[in-house]
């Protein structure tokens, strides 16, 4: 909702209208800067650094934000929405510009440019260490200011990348952050932007795919479960009101971790907590009942419920909470989960299934049967079909029935036109079981690798998936089943779902983001695969199809547009007739792949 308000106006001429907050104590310079920025057609907000007024305001602002009160958070959001970038002087009375930098960077999550007459290397370094995205020497020239939009743009790109790369344990949090930002219009401000972003990330992945996964990934800190627990422990020990990256870092006592790592994580953690709060207030159905509730609600109610689940789950695994919710959410979570448990599987199957599985596992199963039956009817209903969420929901439920469930699902399939759903369930079940143990135990360590691997696995095709699945055991079987499901579902649902989703997309930026990532990966994989043999293509596409089918609603219009040219065109399988959307295309390939798979399996 907010996105619309912000994004559309801002998108039109992106660098123009950039909202710049200038903080300085020098009136002369403020005046010059203001004029310069205006000449760059930025919007300028001048904050004269008055030791009393501005500082006290700022302190209040900081205090309230760290207090975690909802009002304070709203205030923060409002403030944060007010600017795109901050330019601050280093030398200001009463408060070190670096301190300000740290606060602004952490609390408001804005790019900060430091400026100073003093170009001493040590100071510049300090500024960069504190998170300055740039350090300009006074007097600043117009030509330097003209380019500051790049920092805003870069940040938006990084936001997308972050979500992609931090999946492991942080998946839960990340989506939220992403959603927050998307709400603010950061991520989705411009279509051009998003497209560019995707392209970038695609490129990135392609690069990675060609290289060694481990080496490509090393730079990024993966917040494994262990690491995160250490982090949370440290935060609790310090007290949430008083936490600072430095303190946490000291308490965590992890030698290779840097203050920046912690700072960025803390920032996300705060966003995540605030998000939780918000969502808790919003949630209609209680997540306590677990998946069943969530899944039902999700079909009708979208992401809210899913988010609720998230909360519950978050503490423990965080992964399954998503399953109940929209397909978006589910997809995201599953990825993360999968990554944790078994690296390769995540993209295709595990997504939905996994999410559900972990949380419910044993408990839900007994009741699963009952749920399944209930769900199937839902699935059959036209309304539900329209929503992408319905499908995922069902999937999530699938976890419940293990072997028995499979049988049930089959029967249900026969009854309903939605037979697809049941197969998926069976898949989920299978996967879920293996996943559970694996995920809970090893998730942390494997998470980082998992991301990469998943990508690679996609590119490598199903064979890899199968291999990856091996831990899952029955996963192979489940795969074909899923594909079937996907096929059926996408055809039936996709057209409807797409429209519906579009409507919803605004609300579900988070999910969209995650989807984007996933889709991107899929696409990448698909492209790669296309180069390979037809079979491989089919397989890979099948993966895509799965993914897409899984996501149905997830993919925004943008995505569709974006993807159309690429993988699909390449595919020899241009069978897709009626459906204009990519998914359709994907789906058809899926069918083919299914056949292949079936043969293969047989």
């Amino acid at each position, binding site marked *: 909702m907010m996105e619309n308000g912000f994004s559309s106006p801002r998108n039109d001429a992106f660098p123009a209208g950039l909202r710049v907050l200038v903080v300085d104590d*020098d*009136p*002369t*310079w403020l*005046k*010059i800067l203001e*004029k*310069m920025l205006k*000449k760059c057609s930025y919007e300028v907000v001048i904050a004269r650094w008055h030791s009393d007024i501005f500082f006290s305001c700022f302190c209040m602002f900081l205090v309230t934000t760290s207090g975690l009160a909802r009002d304070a958070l709203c205030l923060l959001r409002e403030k944060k929405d007010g600017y795109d970038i901050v330019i601050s002087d280093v*030398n200001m009375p009463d408060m070190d510009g670096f301190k300000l930098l740290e606060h602004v960077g952490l609390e408001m999550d804005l790019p900060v440019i430091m400026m100073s*007459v003093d170009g001493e290397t040590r100071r510049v370094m300090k500024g960069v260490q504190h998170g300055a995205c740039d350090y300009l020497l*006074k*007097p600043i*020239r*117009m030509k330097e200011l003209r380019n500051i939009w790049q920092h805003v743009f870069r940040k938006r790109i990084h936001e997308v990348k972050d979500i992609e790369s931090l999946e492991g344990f942080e998946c839960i949090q990340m989506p939220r952050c992403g959603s927050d930002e998307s709400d603010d219009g950061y991520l989705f401000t411009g279509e051009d932007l998003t497209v560019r972003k995707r392209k970038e990330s695609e490129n990135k992945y392609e690069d990675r795919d060609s290289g060694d996964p481990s080496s490509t990934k090393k730079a990024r800190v993966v917040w494994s479960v262990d690491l995160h627990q250490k982090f949370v422990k440290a935060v609790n020990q310090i007290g949430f009101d008083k936490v600072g990256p430095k303190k946490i870092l000291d308490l965590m006592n992890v030698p290779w971790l840097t203050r920046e790592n912690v700072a960025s994580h803390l920032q996300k953690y705060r966003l995540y907590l605030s998000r939780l709060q918000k969502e808790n207030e919003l949630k209609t159905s209680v997540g306590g009942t677990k998946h069943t509730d969530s899944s039902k609600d999700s079909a009708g109610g979208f992401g809210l419920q899913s988010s609720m689940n998230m909360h519950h789950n978050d503490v423990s695994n965080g992964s399954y909470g998503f399953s109940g919710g929209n397909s978006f959410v589910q997809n995201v979570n599953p990825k993360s989960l999968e990554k944790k448990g078994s690296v390769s599987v995540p993209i295709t199957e595990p997504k939905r299934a996994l999410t559900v599985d972990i949380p419910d596992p044993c408990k839900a199963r007994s009741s699963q049967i009952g749920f399944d039956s209930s769900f199937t009817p839902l699935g059959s209903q036209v309304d539900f079909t329209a929503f992408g969420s319905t499908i995922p929901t069902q999937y999530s439920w699938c976890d419940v029935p293990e072997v028995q469930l499979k049988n049930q699902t089959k029967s249900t399939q026969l009854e309903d036109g939605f037979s697809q759903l049941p197969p998926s369930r069976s898949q989920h079940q299978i996967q879920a079981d293996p996943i559970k143990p694996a995920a809970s135990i090893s998730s942390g360590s494997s998470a980082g690798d998992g991301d990469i691997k998943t990508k690679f696995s996609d590119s490598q095709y199903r064979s890899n998936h199968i291999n990856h699945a091996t831990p899952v055991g029955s996963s192979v079987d489940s795969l074909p089943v899923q594909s079937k499901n996907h096929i059926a579902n996408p055809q039936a649902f996709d057209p409807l779902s797409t429209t519906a989703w579009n409507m919803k997309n605004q609300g579900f930026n988070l999910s969209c983001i995650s989807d984007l990532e996933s889709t991107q990966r899929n696409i990448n994989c698909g492209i790669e695969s296309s180069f390979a043999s037809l079979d491989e293509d089919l397989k890979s596409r099948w993966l895509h199809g799965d993914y897409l089918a899984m996501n149905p609603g997830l993919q925004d219009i943008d995505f569709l547009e974006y993807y159309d040219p690429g993988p699909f065109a390449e595919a020899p399988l241009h069978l897709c007739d009626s459906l204009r959307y990519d998914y359709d295309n994907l789906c058809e390939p899926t069918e083919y792949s299914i056949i292949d798979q079936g043969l293969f399996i047989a």
Partner: protein
Amino acid sequence: MERNQLRRQLAVMRQSLFDQGFLDEQFIQLEELQDDANPNFVEEIVTLEKSPLDFNKLDSYMHHIGAKKVKAESTHFREYCKAGNAEGCLRTFQQLKKEYTTLKKKLEAYFQMARQAGPKEIAGRSK
């Protein structure tokens, strides 16, 4: 015309400020910022703070307006201070004050003439 003459004089004066090293390109930057919305932008900036008492302020201020000579003197002054050279400090401080006063006078004269020539005459900035 008298006006044209004024303009020419103004341009010469301005050029001499650069030639003699009083001003640098930052001043041109300021001039370029001047537009219809702020026809007297340069003057507004330059006379914003008549005589800053704080050395740091003065220093940064001189940076803002592109007061080349004053900047150089203040840099010397700073270096002497850092080195703990009291004599050098005193000497450069006197020099700084002198340069500052000179510049102030020159600029005052320049802006006065600019006002007489009319707001657009500063367009002589086009070098």
